[in-house]
């Protein structure tokens, strides 16, 4: 009888153990070695620098989990903040900055953090709050990491300075100038850019036309470029945290939409979607002669089309100055090791490290103190025909004005992107598609 109860007990225990193992995972270890978990996407966290930090702090393990941007900054972060469990550091992309700035409760206020002694050897002084580091960064990029209650929720990593990447060989073939300054002068405005596209397309052979070759990879990308050249998008900063929705009245939206529609209807684009297999192949085959390229895209082009090395060059963006993307590293309020996380961020995003990242991966630094640095200004990229990419991009991002992003910016962008897609696919007239866009946006913003 006793044995029986033991059996029953052991079954109960093992059942509990099975359940517990599923819930608890591995047992907690001694506190000494610290693991910083980082949720990120793309190339925000660079392997080389991670190794460097490991050498600096052998006791710290950086556990990096990469996801796609939308699930990362959407579902995963919402779930983490709701359940109050999650990583020590999260990368938040600019498109989601408006959303997360309205939830400062999900983040540690970095004004209240102080750097420890840990990184003094690496040139990061101890006892500094976020406000002490503010002067190192581009002011409008810094603002994108400030919560609507003025708490500092993140440090900027890079600026997605936007310029035009073009194929020198294809421009030459089409009888266009190839020198980057002259190319930039071809298109002071977007109208001129479209006109150049029409001219380029007119020179295509019949075979090229049949193969679907064109001037720009996707005319739809013009929309975001123009939107980012303005001062307002879908929200007006009226002093309230939420801002006022102006997507249907803002002339900048109309200008960006109309210009993109015009480019689409004139057929200067190949209609290949970015980041598709067709795009990667087209990049190699010279299917398109231009890409609106944020700084971080240079590395992607290098990886996808290594054989086109030296055939590319970079020219200024029409309309002067552009930006697309950029990321903030944040420390969530539910971080288990906020001090170690803050120390890591202040080191990882220090100007010195940002310069290294730019040189190896082309992510353009948000640390504006570097913009006068000869190391940045003199940097030339052989893949892009020795273009002084440091100089070109720093001139571009200095012209960008801060934009109030607003909470649902990403969702509204997607509705409009779908609208442009419908016109490009000739499924709807521009007017009808715009009407549909308004309906879709209403659905998103209504609760």
């Amino acid at each position, binding site marked *: 009888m006793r044995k029986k109860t033991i059996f029953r007990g052991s079954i109960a225990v093992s059942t509990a153990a099975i*359940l517990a193992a599923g819930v608890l995972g591995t047992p907690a270890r001694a506190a000494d070695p610290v693991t910083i978990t980082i949720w990120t996407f793309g190339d925000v966290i660079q392997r080389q620098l991670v190794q460097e930090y490991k050498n600096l702090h052998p006791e710290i393990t950086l556990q990096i989990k990469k996801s796609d941007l939308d699930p990362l900054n959407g579902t995963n972060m919402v779930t983490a903040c709701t359940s109050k469990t999650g990583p020590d550091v999260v990368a938040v992309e600019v498109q989601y900055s408006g959303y997360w700035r309205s939830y400062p409760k999900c983040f540690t206020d970095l004004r209240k953090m102080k750097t420890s002694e840990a990184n003094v050897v690496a040139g990061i002084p101890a006892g500094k709050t976020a406000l002490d580091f503010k002067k190192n960064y581009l002011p409008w990029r810094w603002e994108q990491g400030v919560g609507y209650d003025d708490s500092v929720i993140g440090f900027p990593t890079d600026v997605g300075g936007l310029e035009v990447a073009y194929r020198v060989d294809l421009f030459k073939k089409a009888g266009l100038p190839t020198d980057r300054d002259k190319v930039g002068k071809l298109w002071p405005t977007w109208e001129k850019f479209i006109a150049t596209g029409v001219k380029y397309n007119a020179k295509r052979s019949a075979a090229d036309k049949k193969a679907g070759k064109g001037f720009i990879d996707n005319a739809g990308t013009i929309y975001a470029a123009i939107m980012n050249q303005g001062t307002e998008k879908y929200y007006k900063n009226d002093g309230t945290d939420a801002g006022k929705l102006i997507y249907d009245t803002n002339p900048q939206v109309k200008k960006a939409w109309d210009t993109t529609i015009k480019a689409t209807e004139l057929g200067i684009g190949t209609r290949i979607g970015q980041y598709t297999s067709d795009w990667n192949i087209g990049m190699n085959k010279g299917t398109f002669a231009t890409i609106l390229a944020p700084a971080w895209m240079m590395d992607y082009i290098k990886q996808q089309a290594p054989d086109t090395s030296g055939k590319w060059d970079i020219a200024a963006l029409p309309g002067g100055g552009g930006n697309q993307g950029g990321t903030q590293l944040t420390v969530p309020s539910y971080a288990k090791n906020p001090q170690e996380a803050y120390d890591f961020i202040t080191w990882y995003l220090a100007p010195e490290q940002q310069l290294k990242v730019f040189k190896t991966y082309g992510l353009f630094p948000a640390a504006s103190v570097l913009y006068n640095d000869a190391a940045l200004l003199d940097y030339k990229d052989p893949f892009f025909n020795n273009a002084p990419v440091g100089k070109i991009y720093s001139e571009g991002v200095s012209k960008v004005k801060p934009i109030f992003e607003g909470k649902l910016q990403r969702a509204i962008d997607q509705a409009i992107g779908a609208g442009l897609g419908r016109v490009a696919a000739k499924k709807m007239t521009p007017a009808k598609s715009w009407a549909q866009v308004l309906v879709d946006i209403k659905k998103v913003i209504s609760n």
Partner: protein
Amino acid sequence: MSHSKEREGRRKAPLSPWKSTTPKKATKTNKPIEGVASLDHRFGIPFIAPFFLIFLIFGLAPVIYSIYISFYKWDPLGGSTFNGVQNFVTLWGDSDFWLAMRNTFSIWALSTFPQMAMAIGLAVILRSKRLRGASFWRTIFLVPNITSVIAITIVFGQLFGRDFGIINGILGLFGVDNIDFIEGVIPSHIQIAVMITWRWIGYNTLIFLAAMLAIPDELYESASVDGATKWQQFIYVTLPQLKNTITFVLVVGTIGGLQVFAEPQQLAADGGSSKQFLTLTLFLYNQAFVNNKYGYAAAIGIAITVIVLIISVINFLITRRISNDGGGR
């Protein structure tokens, strides 16, 4: 009959090791049935408890919770307010919902019926006594089923690429213009249906094969004595015997078809520029996890449940009719 067989087997089966270690040998030898029964009684519940516990936590609780939140404006970060039946009213009037319904059933039809015909055909080939390496083929047919949906979508996305995809390349040889397998409504449905078909056809083939192997050879023998050709044998012997299996495959396929999610989501997370391949589950997912409208998404979930229930009832009625018919033969 099957019941009594089961009991017989039980009696003959060796006793559980739990029992053999107990000191009360007398009960073990004298009253074996009672012993087993008492074992069932004492250990049965703990043994099945893990399933029910997990089901309660991960199955029933979320269902009840989502019914609850479907009556709310539910924002996990921003707080929630009671909304009555407003979510359901909005859903009824939401054109996206009806669009998603159309897409879901279109993809379901395109993936289910051609697949079923092909699966039966393949099963006939696998059953053929002249086929060499039968077990090799039977095994390899399951490989697509265990392949990751993401991997399938990436590969098929390249096959179906508009400009450089191999399918358009082949069609081009016959003078067909490039088809846009993303923007076109029916082409995009075909692309998704092909992925589903590729993934599930092996599984269904094996089910049909199992059913065919259970058909007594006498039926074929007497059919051939009567002078039936192979084709006539297939039509008049094989197919009628497969009726129940066909219904089963149809039911399972329908439930799966209503949950098509990963394939369209991988093609374009928003379901396409004019939501041409937005399916019901993708619609639900986007409302919850992209637009943060959890209450509305819960309402969609309930709507999907109702649709599945309706279809299940229809299936049940049809199955009953068929099995009644089948009983006479």
